[in-house]
């Protein structure tokens, strides 16, 4: 699989994603500067990494969403290519309107960094084929603005269309609101677009791709994508 990681001014987790994907796939991962007009040819998966693009100034992800490279990312998504937004990347995707909603400040009003359990809601997306239905996994979170928000009716629509992919859960799989580390509505941690080829999530799978450094559940995301691509999609 051919992976490209976009680097914005202020991205911090780009190298983490590059290393995780290179180690998993055994192939070099392309790094694409935000000012470039195009993605490398034959890119299967574009990753918008975590970090503080533009210092989170104005609104998180706002300025990065208007970068030159986003035109190419939009086209890639339109043509059915895979796009994964992690943390700041998820925020950028909502600002770019490639995903619905907005990420508001955590209910604690503080930055929160800790391991986090999630429940997998859909296993039929390109990013989650290797998970079991309702599997409980652990990815770390590290963010200040992770409270997913949509007005009530649009939230119902989102659920009806099955766009919720990950929810904050207890280790036993309960999704009671107290279990959410940031107050996200309906405990939403990650969603896809209607078509299912663009995923945004606040937790960091690239930080759970090495047993020594935070667990191995993140590997299931890369396995899912690899499986999807090999399956000829």
């Amino acid at each position, binding site marked *: 699989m051919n992976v490209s990681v976009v680097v914005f001014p*202020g991205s911090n987790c780009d190298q983490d994603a590059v290393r995780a994907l290179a180690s998993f796939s055994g192939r070099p991962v392309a790094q694409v*500067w935000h000012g470039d007009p195009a993605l490398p040819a034959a890119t299967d998966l574009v990753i918008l990494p975590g970090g*503080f693009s*533009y210092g989170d100034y104005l609104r998180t992800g706002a300025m990065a969403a208007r970068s030159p490279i986003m035109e190419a990312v939009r086209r890639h998504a339109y043509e059915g290519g895979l796009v994964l937004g992690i943390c700041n990347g998820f925020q950028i995707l909502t600002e770019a309107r490639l995903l619905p909603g907005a990420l508001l400040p955590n209910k604690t009003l*503080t*930055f929160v960094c800790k391991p986090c359990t999630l429940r997998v809601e859909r296993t039929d997306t390109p990013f989650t084929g290797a998970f079991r239905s309702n599997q409980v996994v652990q990815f770390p979170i*590290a963010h*200040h603005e992770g409270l997913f928000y949509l007005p009530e009716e649009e939230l119902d629509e989102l659920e009806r269309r099955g766009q919720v992919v990950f929810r904050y859960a207890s280790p036993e799989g309960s999704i009671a609101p107290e279990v959410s580390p940031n107050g996200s509505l309906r405990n939403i941690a990650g969603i896809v677009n209607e078509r299912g080829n663009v995923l945004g999530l606040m937790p960091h799978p*690239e930080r759970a791709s090495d047993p020594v*450094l935070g667990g191995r559940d993140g590997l299931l995301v890369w396995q899912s994508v690899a499986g999807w691509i090999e399956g000829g999609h």
Partner: protein
Amino acid sequence: MDFRTVGLTENEYKTILRELGRTPNETELRLFGVMWSEHCSYKSTRPLLRLFPTEGRAVVQGPGENAGVVDLGEGFGLAFKVESHNHPSAVEPYQGAATGVGGIIRDILAMGARPVASMDGLFFGDPELRKTKALRQGIVAGIGGYGNAVGVPTVGGKTVYDEAYTENPLVNAFCAGVVRLEDMVRSDTAQPGRLVVLLGAKTGRDGIAGAAFASVELAEDTSASRPQVQIGDPFAEKLLIECCLELLEKGLIDSMQDMGAAGIISSSSEIAAKSDVGMVLDLDRVPLREKGMTPWEIALSESQERMLLIVNPDRMEQVLQVAAKWALDCTVFGETTGDGRYVMKAGGAVVVDLPPAFIGGNAPVIHWPSREPRDLEERQRLEVEELSPPKDLGAVLRSLLEDPNLGSKTWISEQYDSMVQTNTVIGPGGPVSVLRVLRGDSAPVFVAFSMEADPWKCRTDPKGGGAETMARTLRSLSVCGAEPLGWTNCLNFPSPQDPEVFWEMRECVQGMADAARALACPVVSGNVSLYNETPQKKILPTPLVVTAGLLPDLDGFLPWSRWREGDHLFLAGMPNAALGASRYLLRTFGLLRGKVLPFDAGAEQDFTARARRTAKEGAARSARSLAGGGLAVALAKEALESGIGARLDVQIPTRPDVFLFGEGGPRALYAVPPASLPLFRSIWRGAPLTELGVATGNILDVKRGFSLSLAELRDSWRR
């Protein structure tokens, strides 16, 4: 203008007149005022710092550069240093702490290293006071706000509470970075005919004379001090880091300096002096953020996120391209010369013309008088018999766990990103933090950090306290299996003009040096912060130590908090410790008295060797070096985090409270699986070793001592 206005003494002024052979002009006088302030010149402490051992097998760069560097093998080095930002944090906690983090990161970057880890030593007053809560909130938010955004993980730290810090909180910021030794930057490599370049933010009036501000006691009303605090921009710093590392990778710069205290004058004169070249700088060419700045304001500005580069003219074009990519201002404003003179021009006229080495390095040492404190004997007097043994040892332990100095700090560390860069093996919350270090195509290696401070012991017994502080870091590293490589320290003290304070400082340094020498661990960098006091209150003597150790792989790493049902528990090291200046004495009796257990080089060396063998040979499952709160607190933390209690039945050799809560000396709590007992016992044969009992159930039960459930312990610890 009078020399006293800029904070110079008569002796200093006379020295300047003598050396220059003329009267300095106003701009030059202001420059000396800042460069010869305590913060910049270390004039009160240079002789003391020479007491530290600075040589060692692993030392690549000792004190004298922006940071020290130790060898990690395969051509890679670890650059690290700790630095204080105390006075600014007292006045504007968020920005003071944030710019402290930013400043030390740039010191690491200036060595050519990529910053990979931060830690912070924080000292606050009484945590119940509104003022303390406000300061703490601002400082914690500032550290997180800057560190998280700039992408350097905060992997550990130390938070201390004592009313002595109420008006004078301390913020000691530590940073470590990884550098390819062949790319390591030095200040003595500049040649004549090179360009002097300013990279990064525009220059404004931030922090003007901040270095002098740090050398003066805080006045009663700090609101008048506000203009001197610098404002940090972590986004600009992230761009600066990536830009500088790209410039280095492409071999485009000859040398680099961070612009910290006294900005332009400090960084440029340092390079000129160390490289033995002259310099001509044109202040009119410095990009400014504010109108009407005078030459001395430009020269002394402490605007953040700026670096000084020395560039070969042939490479300048490419340097500009890289800077443009990262959208950073990059301006040539001077050149190096062969005439050995340091010259600054403004408005076409020469405003400064000084010998470079004289500016920074030659502030005359001040030999403050030193006198043993009159109440030293009183401070050290402690007859254990005069303390009535507590009836309820369990209540004492719970009280210790509720002590904010010993309780859980997770609520602070969770506000910091401890995992960015995906190299954090063990983050905040334990005795040691462990980081993976990638070494290009060679196998990675692992680095462990230990940060310690014990101002109470340094108050009652400065030499013993200094030794104990230093030794604790080495014990923690050895117990987990790491080989100490080198250390850095920050000496936080009140005014050296008080002879008793100066005596305390010298004794602390001597104690730290003795311990370091006995255990062959060199100092590679450090920082001094004096005048931490207000008219009402002085801080306690507060040396802070951070030691780095090497683990070739994780097989030989011995973690803590891993008890399993059936493990045998041992106390390695002498069972009798000291109550002097212990948490127990302070918390239970409200006494700050007593001497520290004397430093015993032989015992420390023996302990170190056996502890490292234990880790290397896998002879134990879990180990924790004893520190604040002694054996009982160590037992409680191990039990709590493992989720298992213990049944202990020991013939307690001294008074129960001395045995359970005494501190000092090389001692560790080990949990050994039955299969490893023969190996463990053989490693510790001939050394003091006390078998304590067994890990089991969910009660921590010490026969003839106390019995507490895990739930009770947890309830106290997480208060």
